[in-house]
């Protein structure tokens, strides 16, 4: 099944932030906490899926010369929808927390990259599967990085969603001295760098074995 393959490649072989090293700005900026990373991932996934579907629908209509500008406009429209919905709903706190990174989804290279490299050449269903796969892979990476940084940075993960605490996770107990460096800006770079190195290690094993 080709659609299944397009869907699942987003989880490992083309895992956006780690494998392709694209769209790093939100990856580094919003992963101070697990819920921030998760929310940002979902918002990006929504925009990615919608823009992939629309670009794929219009792929024979858009003249090649103005295609990039058209893609950016399509993406920007969906970002505005996300922005307005988040601001008006229970996700207002998350919207405040993510700040300018919500409007900046427009310039996330992953979304434009998928529109250009995939959706403008493939059918609607495949583009939908591709967008969903890459988007969920992105969400997963952001949530994972956010969880690591929050766990070591403050010693406890408090997952807030729509104004309610869904769960808290504190494996270290109260004696843990928070390693606040992980939540500071340099910690983001170093944490992501180490994760990339580890993923390289696993990838090398796979190709060697």
């Amino acid at each position, binding site marked *: 099944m080709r659609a299944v393959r397009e869907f699942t490649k987003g989880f490992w072989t083309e895992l956006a932030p780690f494998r392709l090293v694209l769209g790093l700005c939100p990856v580094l900026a919003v992963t101070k906490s697990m819920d921030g990373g998760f929310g940002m991932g979902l918002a990006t996934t929504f925009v990615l899926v919608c823009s992939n579907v629309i670009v794929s629908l219009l792929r024979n209509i858009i003249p090649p010369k103005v295609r990039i*500008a058209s893609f950016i406009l399509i993406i920007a429209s969906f970002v505005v929808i996300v922005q307005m919905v988040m601001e008006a709903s229970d996700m207002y706190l998350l919207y405040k927390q993510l700040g*300018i990174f919500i409007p900046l989804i427009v310039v996330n290279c992953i979304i434009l990259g998928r529109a250009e490299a995939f959706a403008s050449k493939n059918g609607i269903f495949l583009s939908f599967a591709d967008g969903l796969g890459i988007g969920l892979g992105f969400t997963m990476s952001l949530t994972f990085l956010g969880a690591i940084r929050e766990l070591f940075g403050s010693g406890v993960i408090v997952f807030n969603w729509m104004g309610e605490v869904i769960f808290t996770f504190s494996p270290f107990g109260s004696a843990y001295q928070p390693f606040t460096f992980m939540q500071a800006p*340099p910690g983001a770079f170093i944490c992501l760098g180490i994760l990339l190195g*580890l993923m*390289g290690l696993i990838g*090398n094993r796979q190709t060697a074995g």
Partner: protein
Amino acid sequence: MQDILLMVIAAIFVNNILLMQFLGNCPFLGVSKSMDTALGMAMAVVFVMVLAATISYITQVYLLVPLGLEYLQTITFILVIAALVQLVEMFLKKAVPPLYRSLGIFLPLITTNCAVMGVCLLAVQKEYNFVQTIIFSFASAVGYGLALVLFAGWRERFAVSPIPKTFRGTAIGLICAGLIALAFMGFIGMVK
């Protein structure tokens, strides 16, 4: 005068747009492989960022706010930036060919550089006036260029360093970026 100086120092060092606010990381890792490309990119960013922030400020204050269309901010800004980059590219190609040859390949990349749009949005969010917007965008761009050039100088040495195999490439780049960010954290406290 003192306010302006403080704002410049804050934008270049304390709130460095690249290392502290994580804007524009894709080109940061992409073009920092050699000093020449990093310098070219830094200059292109300074040029476009100041122009983009100025024009987006004018659009915001004289077009979007009077018409009550603030919710179209995101679409308008990205359009303004994309059109501006195209215009600058055409202008440079015709008028200053040597500059075009050195900046040319970086200009299209800048459209999707989130630092440019980030500065435009930040300037509006912080409610700066016209002069402040220009100074803020210029200082931010200089901060971006500084970090880029510092990083490129470091990265050129990777080729001759015994780096563990798994960390070669982006992984070690990110860790070094983290160390530079750590150095920049030392500036916190200079400006309250």
